[in-house]
């Protein structure tokens, strides 16, 4: 018996409802005997349908897994109904460290320390405890330092579908670069010419 797309999507919806946690498209595909890529495509369709019809539930993707969540716009009503509790927000130091790990992964503690100019060990530990980052292996360098990367929990925490959704930051850098003054413009520098060979 083969199902048509509509029936597959219907099955996936029911499965997401029961599963609660992000449901891996591959797991769902196996359950209905469908290829993983096709299943993924159908999940994306469900997601789009929910968005377009403006339902109170939205389908959120977290790295190839899908989950029903509430729609952002309804937050106020939820709060009036039941004051939902969310865990504390991350500290500035934690966000900084997490940003470096997210954009530079896999990255070692040493590299993070150099960028921040401070030791980040305890902050990394805290992020690992919150399951936002994890060890991704060892760098091929002296002492085989641990390489850190972000987890599916990171995507979930920030509501990213995948790492590709991380906001672009190199644009900022480029913008700064373009503001770079000419190399000849050196107001503070005292240039002494030796031997008067300079123009």
């Amino acid at each position: 018996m083969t199902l048509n797309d509509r029936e597959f999507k219907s099955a996936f919806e029911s499965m997401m409802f029961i599963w609660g946690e992000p449901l891996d498209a591959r797991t769902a595909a196996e359950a209905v005997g469908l290829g993983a890529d096709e299943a993924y495509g159908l999940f994306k369709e469900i997601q789009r349908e929910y968005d377009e019809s403006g339902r109170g539930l939205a389908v959120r993707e977290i790295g190839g897994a899908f989950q029903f969540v509430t729609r952002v716009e309804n937050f106020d009503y939820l709060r009036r109904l039941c004051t939902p509790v969310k865990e504390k927000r991350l500290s500035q130091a934690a966000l900084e460290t997490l940003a470096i790990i997210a954009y530079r992964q896999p990255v070692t503690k040493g590299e993070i320390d150099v960028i921040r100019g401070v030791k980040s060990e305890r902050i990394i530990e805290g992020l690992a405890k919150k399951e936002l980052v994890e060890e991704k292996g060892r760098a091929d360098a002296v002492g085989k330092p641990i390489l850190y990367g972000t987890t599916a929990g990171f995507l979930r925490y920030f509501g990213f579908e995948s790492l590709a959704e991380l906001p672009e930051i190199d644009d900022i850098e480029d913008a700064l670069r373009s503001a770079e003054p000419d190399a000849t413009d050196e107001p503070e520098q005292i240039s002494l010419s030796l031997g008067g060979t300079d123009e």
Partner: protein
Amino acid sequence: MTYKVRLEVFEGPFDLLVYLIESAEMNIYDIQISEITRQYLEYMAEISSRNLESSGEFMVLAAVLIELKSRMLLPRVRPDGGVEEDPRKELVQKILEYKKFKRAAALLQEQEEWAMLVFEKPQEDLQPFTGEPDVYLKMDIGQFVHAFRMFLSRQERIEEVRRRYERVERQRATTEQKIDHIKGVFAARRAKRLKFGELLEDGADRYDKALTFVALLEMVRNRTASVWQGRSFSEIVVEMGAGGGRRRPVRAGGSFDAE
């Protein structure tokens, strides 16, 4: 130019440096090193007065700045006539790199705010859907009784641990009480020296004796009393006040007359 800023708000030396550069509205590619170094060191003074944990890391950047300052004063023309690279270049690169991730952190924070508005439901008990309804119902009465006994004995063990834990707490309190008691005995007897036996309360049990001994050891450690013994297993003599180092401590096999 002076401003007071709470140091705690800076995540590290670069954070402070970026703040100073931006406050002074300096071009990042043309940092006035001497001015920035002066301001930075002002903050350093403040930091060391508070003995912050990370002051060492702030110090490292201070050293870099001072070195830069000195290099800026020197001519930058090499002997072969070529112009040296701007000594500030490396620092600028680091600051740019740091700023980039500080900006990224701010973007993540915005995203975090947004994600906080989204709620999910935790996974519920899936047992009704797994085809294995309530395994406990399959148990016979014997298994059930066994499970219940296990539960009771576990409760007992927990109780036992709790009792012990409390006892430890009580003991700690009584060591201090015992010290007070010993001091009290000395005060009441207006004596400077007493034998160990005289410190014991009437009808003291073994626990009480041990505790008195522990209290004495504590007093010796913090130099409120000194003790000695004529020979092994003889009466311990206790004297209030530290021996000041001249007092010979316990002398095994000695012939020192305690009285």
